[in-house]
């Protein structure tokens, strides 16, 4: 049997979630980069793997699958030795994980991805920044972080729904929150400081999935620094223009 082939770009939050899951669980894989900034997701050869042209996607010995949550659930149920806490067999516990993952699509993800896209990375994808869309997404993001804080981090455990160990929902949501690093250190702190439980939870996910979580996020730290420097350069340029006037 061949290795599991993952089609990912580490700049994409769901790509990172699937990758970290495999690394943390010792699943042997081949990582295929689909460079989003170069438009590789729109090429015919990738369309054969995922007709929706999105990452992540996978090829498990001829079985093609996309949508990161579906992939995570599939991997949990297919590969041996995955611990129960990732996606509990207990029906009610599992239902709560499903609930968070479903909510994620229309809550946190839409807020976070919308804000980052419309206020930072749109030009890289050949689109224009959209301040109004960014503002709407930011309101949704803030409400979503508040919901994580008050609805799912209320138990004794460190993880969502009060669990003592992380589930695929913790991983998926944590990778999404990490994308906010691209907004810059000040903005990131600002968003998390008002939700101290979310901040502790994120640190717990990172620690528990060490070193994989940090390693796979390395690309995000680098991109965040690059955007930060770019913002500073632009601010200095603007200052210079003002002082000349």
């Amino acid at each position: 049997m061949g290795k599991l082939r993952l089609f990912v770009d580490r700049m994409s939050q769901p790509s990172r979630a699937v990758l970290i899951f495999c690394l943390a669980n010792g699943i042997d894989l081949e990582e295929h980069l689909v460079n989003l900034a170069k438009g590789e997701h729109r090429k015919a050869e990738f369309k054969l793997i995922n007709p929706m042209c999105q990452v992540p996607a996978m090829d498990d010995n001829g079985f093609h699958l996309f949508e990161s949550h579906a992939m995570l659930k599939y991997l949990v149920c297919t590969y041996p030795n995955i611990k129960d806490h990732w996606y509990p067999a207990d029906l009610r516990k599992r239902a709560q994980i499903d609930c968070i993952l479903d909510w994620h699509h229309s809550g946190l993800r839409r807020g976070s991805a919308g804000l980052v896209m419309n206020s930072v990375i749109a030009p890289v994808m050949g689109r224009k920044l959209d301040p109004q869309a960014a503002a709407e997404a930011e309101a949704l993001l803030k409400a979503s972080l508040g919901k994580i804080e008050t609805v799912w981090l209320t138990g004794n455990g460190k993880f969502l729904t009060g669990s003592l160990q992380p589930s695929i929902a913790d991983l998926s949501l944590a990778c999404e929150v990490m994308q906010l690093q691209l907004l810059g250190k000040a903005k990131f702190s600002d968003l998390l400081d008002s939700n101290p439980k979310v901040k502790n939870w994120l640190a717990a996910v990172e620690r528990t999935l060490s070193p994989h979580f940090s390693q796979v996020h390395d690309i995000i730290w680098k991109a965040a620094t690059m955007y930060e420097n770019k913002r500073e350069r632009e601010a200095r340029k603007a200052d210079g223009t003002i002082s000349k006037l």
Partner: protein
Amino acid sequence: MGKLCLFVDRISQPSRAIVIFCLANGIAMEESEVDLLKGDHKKAEYKAINPMGLVPAIDDHGFYLFESHAILRYLSSAYPDVADHWYPADVKKRAQIDCILDWHHTNLRPGSGGLTINRVAAPLLGRPLDEKAAAESEVLLKASIKRIDTLWLNKEGSFLTGNEQPSIADLSLACELMQVEFLGEEYKSELLSPHPKVKHWLDAVEKALAPHFGDVHQKLKAGALAFRK
């Protein structure tokens, strides 16, 4: 033991999916209406059931759950008489159903939901119409219908991924597509005319789940008709 309690408004597409699922599978339940137009979903007593203030939600003997897909998955597994085709135990078949349901959240649902709300229904919920948002949603809706046609209805069976029997993905997506009734029968026909396979599929879902599918959509049809007058 008391019955399963559903908190729903039949005007909401995911609410209908849950009600139809229970009726079609003979799951005894009590339907508790959360009237969206009256703002019942924003009341404190309902937020104790679902802190997000959305329908549907369930109370299964003290176990509260929201998000319609999570509810459908839970009911498929928790109630023993539900046939396997609804949410197959086979890992690969189940993964394909999960994939369609996940895809739904960011495609057909915002397409259809966004269009109906922003072009016609917003005032009912106390919000202004927004034609720019409606037009964007319409583009997404049309693209999504095309995807269903070319990707998931390209095999022999009448249902998604070529199945002979409907799954929870068929039910969820069909209830969503029915929401465009708000824009009128004519609009719906026009929308589906380039995609005869999608039209056949929608008819097949309605037929397979008769009379429940038709019955549960009565409120939507009557509401849409009254609204358009």
